[in-house]
């Protein structure tokens, strides 16, 4: 009897907790633009059950549309559902770092929730609240890929809330690569069969052959490659993509940018120099003005059908696949080109590879966090959890300008993308390229250490000097290495080493 009674009690408890959820799950939230609510700890129904009336949440985020627009959208929804007042401040990218850092440094509790570039974790980690277990154990978080959990983790603790996944990969025009006439033209020019480039040398060669003539028959000249080459406009990421396979040896651990033991910069070693030489050479296949292309220009150039190939974040690919795009379903995704000669810094020699060495670049993307000083941490984490709940993320992934890209295992589902009107082979190439990067054991991450802005700004300046012909690649990177040594001295080698260990752990697949 007692057993029956306790069973009934448990059943009653389950019913009493499950019932409202069930009822709420059936509630219609389609007015928020989602297809349907997906049950979970931060679903619409779960958040709807919370009451934050009379409380205020201050959020700082990027300018509209990239990340700024979904922040504003979900803030409004969160406010409607919970009664909280949510103030969102939108800041252009160039000002975002200092607008977050100055209140941190001066001890002001200016913002509860922060959206920012994930590579700033080296600077911000001291000021961020760890993500509570209730959220790290949620179903939404369980689905986040290991690499993006790693990006959110600092010294073994998750302090960033994953809400975006970014990486660089190759995009190319399948209609040109599959065109027999173009294949013949390439064969005639090079003696080789036209294929998707597997090394950066091949990339430059293909780009060069398909530059300066109207290969798509629209009456306008076409070009081989669109790249982010404008100094101070994320060009440092393009350079890392190009240099990585030459400088990241799969059998050599202990640091890509620095030797973690000595904190000696490796930026002027032969692998990086080779990457820069090829970057300089590639300019001949850029469209007019291509050396001044920022990310927006690159997206427009490839996404608008001007260029054959491109590599960077998802945006250009998504742009090409938007409704109404004249190159919709005429594009493909592939891993970044690799290198058959890789610099081994342990032996001080080039090692040859039969199969190109690939070094996928898990470039910085957007992330979010809660300030340690926030007095509304529970509400702040609820907001982030709601922002990135499964229903919202599937909604946001479909809107290119939102800047939210796949970061959960469930996002690597070809059927989802085909549902958006993508051809199966396009969706397959996209999903396969992205998901295979998750499996690589030779990945490169950003230099997530204190003062990353100084390091990247210095590197971008050196690369820009080489691209402009002001210095040779070796001279330019020697100058960068000297500046990096000065920065290490100013910030402190031990402090940097401790931070850099977090990056090296990711690159060396140690968790």
């Amino acid at each position, binding site marked *: 009897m007692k057993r029956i009674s306790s069973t009934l009690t448990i059943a009653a408890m389950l019913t009493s907790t499950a019932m409202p959820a069930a009822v709420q799950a059936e509630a219609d939230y389609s007015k928020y633009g989602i297809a349907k609510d997906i049950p979970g700890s931060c679903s619409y129904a779960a958040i709807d059950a919370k009451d934050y009336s009379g409380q205020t949440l201050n959020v700082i985020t990027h300018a509209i549309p990239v990340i700024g627009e979904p922040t504003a959208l979900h803030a409004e929804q969160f406010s409607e559902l919970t009664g909280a007042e949510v103030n969102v401040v939108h800041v252009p990218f160039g000002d975002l770092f*200092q607008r977050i850092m100055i209140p941190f440094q001066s001890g002001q509790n200016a913002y509860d929730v922060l959206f920012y570039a994930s590579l700033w974790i080296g600077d911000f980690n001291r000021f961020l609240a760890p993500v509570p277990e209730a959220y790290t154990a949620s179903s939404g978080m369980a689905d986040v890929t290991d690499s993006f959990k790693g990006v959110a983790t600092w010294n073994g603790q998750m302090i960033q809330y994953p809400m975006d996944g970014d990486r660089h990969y190759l995009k190319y025009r399948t209609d040109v690569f599959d065109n027999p006439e173009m294949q013949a033209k390439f064969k005639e020019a090079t003696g080789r069969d036209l294929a998707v480039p597997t090394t950066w040398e091949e990339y430059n060669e293909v780009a060069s052959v398909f530059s300066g003539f109207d290969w798509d028959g629209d009456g306008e000249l076409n070009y081989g490659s669109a790249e982010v080459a404008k100094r101070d406009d994320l060009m440092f990421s393009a350079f890392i993509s190009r240099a990585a396979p030459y400088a990241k040896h799969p059998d050599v651990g202990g640091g890509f940018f620095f030797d973690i033991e000595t904190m000696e910069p490796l930026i002027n070693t032969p692998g990086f120099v080779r990457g820069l030489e090829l970057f300089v050479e590639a300019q001949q296949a850029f469209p*007019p003005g291509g050396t001044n292309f920022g990310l927006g220009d690159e997206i427009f150039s490839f996404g608008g059908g001007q260029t054959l190939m491109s590599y960077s974040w998802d945006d250009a690919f998504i742009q090409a696949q938007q409704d109404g795009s004249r190159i919709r379903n005429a594009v493909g995704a592939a891993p970044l080109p690799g290198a058959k000669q890789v610099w081994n810094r342990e032996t001080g020699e080039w090692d040859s590879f039969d199969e190109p060495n690939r070094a996928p670049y898990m470039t910085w993307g957007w992330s979010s966090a809660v300030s340690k000083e926030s007095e509304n941490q529970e509400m702040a984490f609820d907001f982030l959890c709601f922002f990135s709940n499964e229903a919202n993320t599937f909604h946001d992934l479909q809107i290119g300008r939102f800047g939210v890209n796949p970061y959960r295992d469930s996002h690597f589902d070809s059927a989802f993308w085909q549902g958006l009107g993508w051809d199966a082979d396009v969706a397959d190439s996209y999903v396969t390229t992205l998901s295979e990067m998750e499996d690589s054991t030779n990945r490169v991450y950003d230099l997530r250490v204190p003062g990353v802005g100084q390091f990247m700004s210095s590197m971008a300046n050196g690369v820009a000097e080489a691209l402009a012909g002001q210095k040779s690649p070796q001279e330019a990177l020697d100058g960068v290495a000297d500046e990096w040594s000065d920065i290490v001295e100013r910030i402190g080698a031990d402090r940097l080493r401790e931070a850099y260990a977090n990056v090296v752990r990711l690159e060396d697949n140690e968790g």
Partner: protein
Amino acid sequence: MLKPKHFFLLPALLTLAAIILFPLVFTVRVSFSSWDVYQAGLDFIGGRNYARLFEDTRFWESLLRLSGMSLITVTLQYVLGFALALAVWKKMRGGRIFRVLFLVPMMTTPVVMSVIWRTVFHESLGPANDLLSMVGIGPVPWLSSAAGAFISVVIVEVWQWTPFMFLLLLAGLVSLPREPYLAAAIDGASPARTFWQVTFPLMAPISIGAIIIRLIEASKIMDTVYVMTSGGPGTATETPSYYIYIRGLRDFQVGYSAALSLAYLVLMIITLTIIAKVLMRFLVGKET
């Protein structure tokens, strides 16, 4: 002796101290600290930032570049502004409309105009190369070559700020006395001679004022460079203001950027004082 009436000055003095002196003194103090992305606060590192500045070739190169850019832009603005002011001053037909039209560039927001000019100079999609191609001139690398980017920035600066020069010089022309012109007419002086021997000398003090004001403004050029070239290609259009912005707000080297700012301020004060004295001596013929 302090009298009650002196206390009426107190609000103004306090305001002055708050908005001018305090930021200046604070910047001086920050320049002797190592305040950066990791070390927040006012520690004291002596003159280390200033010593570093002397070895910073990028800063000195940007100064040199700015000198050339300012010389070219302000000279062009002065010549064009003077010519336009003379044209309108002579009561040309439709003068009132032109006066307003000439002022439009100056009244637009520099950042917005820079974005529009960047589009104009876009080498694949911009109208500048389209128009040139109609007369058989091949694509000009406006923003992707060092010379092209430099010239593009100069063009935008001249376009935007010539109206300012025009406005000041027109005000000067309107206020000139009529007697010297009557005397010149009676003597049968040609228009050119009247200009060189009457108008230009009479306009010299105003010209110097206008040139100095424009030099001060030109020395702070930042938004045009930021939007159009980001200082590139390479460092071809990097100016001191943009470089200080990078060091201070991008790299967050607050202490070092304060030292750069103060060094730049001192250099500008010295340089502009010398220029003003030289101009006064040669154009007006006396020391200030």
